[in-house]
């Protein structure tokens, strides 16, 4: 029932160089910043990061871009981060742009045991290059493959020591689907409360899905 939390530095050590890392967050809101800071401090390299956007320079996941930790981004948007754009043009970072709803569903598919999804989004655009278009009931859909990762780093609002998680408002975003889609799931929480404090109906990510919880800052 009670599991032991680890430090942010211990969490960063579990995320090895070259890993694919999903991160919750939308413009940095909902990104676990203590884990990100520990990855920068560790000098992580060659990460493939998967998330909505790369925020801004110096903010949330943007810090990994600044510090040269990232080899590839799979995101829906980089318009708010000129460093990502500069490094992409310089050939230092590979960027794979995915429509936001397709990104959410590809991640969900990975966590749900599905091989992929069929979506109308992207048909007839650059997004459909090299992909199979499937006609069903008179409509065209793109076959988009499931997108799993080695690691997911999650920001919760509350966690308990059984690692059950709750989320808050627009900081929820990609966190719940990512918690199902990676081999190693590491959560950071705004508050850690005793087991029993979070009502079962309020739990959005059951603790059994979470591999590690980062302890509260000392």
């Amino acid at each position: 029932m009670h599991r032991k939390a680890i430090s942010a530095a211990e969490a960063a050590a579990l995320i090895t160089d070259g890993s694919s890392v999903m991160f919750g967050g939308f413009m940095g809101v909902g990104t676990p910043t203590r884990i990100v800071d520990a990855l920068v401090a560790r000098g992580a390299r060659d990460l493939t990061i998967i998330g909505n956007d790369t925020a801004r320079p110096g903010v949330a996941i943007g810090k990994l871009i600044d510090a040269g930790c990232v080899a590839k981004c799979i995101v829906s948007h980089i318009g708010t981060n000129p460093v990502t754009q500069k490094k992409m043009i310089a050939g230092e970072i590979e960027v794979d742009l995915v429509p936001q709803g397709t990104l959410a569903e590809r991640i969900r598919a990975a966590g749900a045991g599905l091989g992929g999804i069929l979506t109308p989004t992207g048909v007839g655009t650059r997004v459909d290059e090299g992909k199979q278009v499937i006609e069903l009931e008179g409509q065209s859909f793109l076959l988009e493959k499931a997108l799993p990762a080695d690691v997911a780093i999650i920001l919760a609002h509350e966690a308990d020591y059984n690692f059950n998680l709750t989320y808050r408002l627009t900081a929820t975003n990609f966190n719940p689907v990512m918690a199902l889609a990676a081999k190693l799931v590491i959560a950071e929480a705004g508050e850690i409360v005793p087991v029993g404090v979070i009502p079962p109906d309020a739990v959005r990510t059951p603790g059994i899905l979470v591999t590690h919880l980062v302890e509260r800052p000392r």
Partner: protein
Amino acid sequence: MSMEAKEIIARRVALELRDNTLVNLGIGLPTLVARYIPPGIRVHFQSENGIIGFGAPPPEGMEDPNLTDAGGGFISAMPGAASFDSAMSFMLIRGGHLDMTVLGGLQVDARGQLANWMVPGKLVPGMGGAMDLVAGARRVVVAMQHVAKGESKIVPELTLPPTAARPVTLVVTDLAVLEPSAQGLILKECAPGVSVEAVRAATAAPLIIRGDVPEMALTP
């Protein structure tokens, strides 16, 4: 774009809002539409980062770091608001639950196809939620300037990468309201003080003009 041009566009788009509908406003010019909601109707605004029913930013010092819009700016939650994750947010958008989206544009062509997510070799911000919005919303309204840097943004055929294969529902500019149809773009309205000839001159695509073209209304 002059303030006047933005206001004309936002006011006209606002007249497309209907009572008790779910609406998503894109970043930039489209967000201005919320200032001109016709009296007596209630619109539920969705922000694709995960909320329905958001309102103006709270007073300084009362912001919640977990309550932001798609641009990362602080917002408030109106009574009755609902928050949800990104998968749910795009189920709403793609699944036919979103009544209308208002998006900015770089180009619209004679078939009504929209380009608004990249300029090859110059600007590659990414599509964010735009491709899902154009593919899934029941009505797609483009709010943009008619002419930029001396060039018409209403073109015979897109020269920029399209956002979706599907044509948009309506195009509102500072000069006109255009409706894509199987035959081409129909000139529905001209902005106050703008002649049909002036719209034609500012439009690179052919226009279909049927009889007298009414003046664009800017108030309900």
